[in-house]
């Protein structure tokens, strides 16, 4: 048996996300929030609109890096969490590949993207497809999945780079296709940083 995304997603989605009496949601070793998608997308769209053209690439990389650092630290928390150990680990039969598949199932269960790995060359390259993802909700005329790019690179760092916390930024991710620019799905390619 390998990690079956849909089974994992269903089980994780059944875990109730509820705030404590202090209004906080501690889970997976981090503090979780549950906010309207409109907030995240509006912020990204408006700050990109505010930036002069000559600084746009730098800002896009900064947006990706927010998700990269988040994905690296939270991803580590996820794959070492009780929730992951109880739901995903019993299905792990292919080492790092299956840990990655499990991480993408969590990624999906959090509502980030209905996504999965379609191709993987261990330690070298990975292709992700997402048939539904919240970052595609607007239609600004450019690819907007900065969060998926960052988290995907981070997950590959966790699987194939130096041990946490020293392995971040060995890999990067580019968005090849996007629903928001008219493609039928989003496609993301992870590869080694130059």
């Amino acid at each position, binding site marked *: 048996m390998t990690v079956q995304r849909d089974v994992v997603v269903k089980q994780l989605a059944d875990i109730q996300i509820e705030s404590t009496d202090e209004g*906080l949601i501690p889970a997976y070793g981090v503090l979780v929030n549950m906010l309207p998608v409109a*907030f995240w997308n509006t912020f990204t769209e*408006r700050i990109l609109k505010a930036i002069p053209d000559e600084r746009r690439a730098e800002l896009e990389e900064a947006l990706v890096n927010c998700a990269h650092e*988040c994905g690296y630290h939270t991803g580590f928390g996820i794959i070492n969490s009780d929730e992951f150990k109880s739901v995903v680990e019993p299905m792990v039969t292919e080492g790092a590949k299956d840990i990655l598949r499990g991480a993408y199932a969590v990624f999906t269960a959090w*509502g980030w993207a209905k996504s999965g790995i379609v191709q993987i060359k261990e330690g070298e390259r990975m292709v992700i497809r997402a048939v539904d993802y919240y970052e595609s909700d607007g239609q600004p005329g450019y690819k907007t999945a900065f969060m998926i790019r960052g988290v995907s690179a981070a997950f590959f760092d966790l699987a194939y780079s130096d041990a946490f916390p020293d392995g971040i930024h060995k890999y990067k991710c580019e968005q090849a296709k996007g629903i928001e620019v008219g493609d039928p799905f989003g496609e993301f390619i992870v590869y080694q940083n130059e």
Partner: protein
Amino acid sequence: MALEVDLTFDQKTYRHYMNGFLAVLHCHHYMSLLTKLAEDYEDVGGPDILCESVEDSIRPMLDDYFQKHNVGTPEEKLKVGQEYYSVMGMGQMEVMGDEQGGEVVLQRSHVDQGWQKKWGGNIGKPINHWTRGYAAAMFAAAFNRPPRSYQAEEIASIIKGDDTSKFTITAC
């Protein structure tokens, strides 16, 4: 009054909904990093863009709740806003005030405590632009005023070592 919260997960799209509004889970790392990014881009208005993005995305949720649950008085509406804040995992809030403005106090704060967990210390100034926007949305919704009718200023901050974070809310 206990907030009625309907959390659903669409088994087809794998998306979350909170009282019918599309929602997503994120963590304190992402919130801290986006807040830091807004600070880093202060020259193009990053903190205010963050604040106003919150105001504009939270307001429809509050208005919708008031309508569907017949929440009538400003006091009840502020109470709903206070409870929604906790349900979202953003912390523990006390609100007081009237149409001219008021005060918001945070006993617990996802933004500040998340920042402390991530980086510790403080940067010598308040950073909770998220809650500034939330407070502006909450007061405008409670008193049925248009967006940007209220300004929130953070006058005490957990990240700066204060016991609580405090915001003064002023009608524009």
